[in-house]
């Protein structure tokens, strides 16, 4: 009886979006009289952060601090259509729609500013802090609040924009499977260190290190949070979770968190993540997306680390202590036969 230590690797790709029936999302942007911009969506924030990403995309285009952007999500009476939050599509589809809407609003904003400043709109730019300014000049500028006030109360214009992103429907070829299902592919490589107790079959994940490429990281902090959360889910899938422990038999299905096993704080290792960027032309500022994929590579990396540690190849999920011990027995038998 001993503890064995091992390291496992896995490398994966993951599609942005999955189109079978056309995949649209829309956004509307408008300014309040005091130059706050409202982004109206019917997209859903499940905790992944689409509200924050939408605000960042709008603020970048409009040249505003992110605090000057409000995001209103998910009322079908007021929000324009969104297919929904799934298939790692939110950042890509909604981000693109918000950028398009914000660009249209920005164009009006610069026209209104040009009239106030008595210059050509083409000579204006935003400074990112809430001012429209004449290119090449530090003095000649107007606050976006004053632009919005002028639009509403002097010029009688609405500073607003409409945005839409749609990937058209694609039909797979029934014979060959030829198809165009996605908009981009993100990538990851995960390295996991484990210990395996050959008496109890218990696996401990000691360290989990990953490198991701997901186009532009629009919000690096949230990217790392997704990687950490996904790593925990991957560990959970690899070692603990199922609603049918005796599948295909349906007995002993768990009905609460006291019998549906998931890793607790002592079962989750330090997670290290490195992000590299290869922006994609069709993505919002080059972003691809990272919503779903972060649970994927940890699972085989753990299985491979277990093999590296003790020679047990477990081909079934979850990799319970019982399966580890049976795989160890099988490995010993093979060794004896050889």
């Amino acid at each position: 009886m001993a503890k064995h230590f091992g390291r496992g690797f896995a490398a994966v790709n993951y599609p942005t979006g999955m189109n079978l029936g056309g995949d649209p999302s829309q956004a509307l942007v408008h300014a309040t009289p005091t130059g706050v911009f409202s982004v109206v969506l019917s997209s859903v924030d499940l905790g992944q952060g689409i509200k924050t990403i939408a605000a960042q995309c709008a603020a970048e285009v409009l040249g505003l601090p992110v605090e000057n952007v409000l995001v209103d999500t998910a009322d079908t009476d007021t929000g324009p259509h969104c297919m929904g939050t799934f298939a790692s599509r939110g950042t890509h589809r909604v981000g693109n729609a918000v950028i398009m809407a914000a660009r249209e609003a920005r164009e009006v904003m610069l026209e209104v500013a040009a009239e106030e400043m008595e210059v050509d709109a083409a000579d204006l730019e935003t400074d990112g802090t809430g001012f429209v300014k004449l290119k090449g000049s530090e003095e000649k500028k107007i606050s976006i609040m004053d632009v919005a006030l002028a639009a509403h109360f002097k010029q009688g214009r609405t500073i607003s924009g409409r945005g839409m992103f749609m990937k058209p429907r694609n039909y797979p070829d029934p014979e060959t499977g030829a198809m165009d299902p996605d908009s981009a592919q993100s990538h990851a490589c995960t390295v996991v260190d484990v210990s395996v107790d050959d008496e109890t079959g218990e696996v401990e994940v000691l360290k989990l290190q990953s490198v991701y490429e997901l186009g532009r990281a629009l919000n690096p902090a949230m990217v790392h949070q997704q990687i950490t959360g996904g790593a925990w889910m991957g560990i959970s899938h690899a070692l603990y979770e199922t609603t049918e422990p005796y599948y295909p038999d349906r007995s002993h299905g768990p009905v609460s968190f006291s019998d549906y096993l998931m890793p607790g704080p002592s079962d989750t290792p330090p997670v290290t993540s490195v992000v590299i960027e290869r922006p994609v032309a069709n993505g919002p500022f080059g972003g691809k997306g990272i919503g779903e994929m972060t649970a994927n590579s940890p699972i085989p990396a753990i299985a491979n680390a277990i093999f590296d540690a003790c020679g047990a190849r477990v081909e079934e999920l979850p990799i319970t202590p019982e399966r580890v011990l049976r795989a160890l027995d099988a490995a010993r038998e093979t060794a004896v036969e050889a």
Partner: protein
Amino acid sequence: MDDHIPSETSGETLDRSYFSDENQHDFKVVGQPSPRLDARGHVTGTTRYFEDNHFRGTLHIKVCRSKRHHAKLTRIDPAPAMNVPGVVRVLTAKDVPANWYTVLRLINVGPNDEPVLAEDSVRYLGEPICAVVAESEAAAIEGASRVQVDYEDLPVVLDVEEALKPDAQIVNPVHGKNYFEYEGHPFRRIRFGDVEKGFAEADHIFEHRYQSRPIEQAPVETTGCIVKPEGDGRLTIYSDTQACFFTLDNTALILDVPTAKLRVVGGTVGGGFGGKVDVMVEPLACIAAMLTNRPVKFVYDRAEEMQVSSPRAAERIYIKDGVMKDGRIVARKMTFYIDSGAYSRHTPYGVTKASAHVPGPYSIPNVWADCHCVYTNRTPSSAMRGFGVTIGDFALESQMDRIAKTLGLDPLIFRLKNAYRDGDTKAHRKKVEGAALIEVIQRAAELVGHDLPEEYRKMSSVKREAK
């Protein structure tokens, strides 16, 4: 904000040295670690979720569910439930205007193969038979337990390969066979190159089987909604759906009402992971609200969330690889049996997604995949984070590891040798663009101090080195 910037010491690094000619920018907001707009609300318990809407006189729904895997219903008697104090009404299939549905009909994936409430038979343990509407949750639970249901058991199919045998009991009469048909084929096909020729040429053949089990999405907030009849005759649906219009349109079809009659309010959800795209609670809550003209709440308890809410499908995957001595994979054949349970929900789509993922991020000249969407007498599976790909990756990357170990190859070098690159053609005939598998492997090797020979450190996704 500076103290939020990820750093090497916190284990979070943004490294722009790869693809540096493609990724430079002067953005002011994008690329910054802006704090989440809703984080403070979430951690202080002040964010409003759908259940924070309270309406006077709200009724509660609990569902009487099948206690059998597969059975004819010879009798459904709601009378004992009606005797429970507080029970207002018991809904049966007759109360559902368009009882048969399938959610993906919105994108023309059919046929309607699932009833909202069971009619003459049940096809999985936990299938809804009738819905008890009561003044309190306790009365609804008590009422649901009192409904009298008589069953006549039918043969049960629980294994995906058993289900595909010619004499297997048919699970779902709408399909008439235990698989989803893809344009005349019994499975989604990928055919690329000549896989048998590849196996004949290969120095080694590796053939293995992988199996997963159903997994629960496990959101903190369970699936649910509150429906409020409004003065103008419309219904407002406060929901934790992951897709507001998808829920609205599917609910309107089941209710057989114009979409203008419904309004969905949501957008702030306590975790989804794919578990909240199936439109399970809104139709019954709307029907109850229309029949009683009172607000109605229908929320899954944790047991329902775990056992009758769609899980991640169990998958059985066979992989056969032909590999040359030097580590080049020349042929890969994959057979997926993806367990849809008794009804389709999103699984036919997930199976197509699985097929598009074959053969993983590698350039292999000969690829074959048969991806079966199989019906069995279990809780229908559906969407879950990465479905169609997650379990495929477990199989693919376990397979890659065992080939490398058997041939005595470095596991990262073996992957680099086979990695796809810009300009390659994938098995589903899409041209590879924006590849970065090589670079994430190179950076991972650096991160963990795994030495790679120079030729592998110099490889690039952008172009192949001259031979």
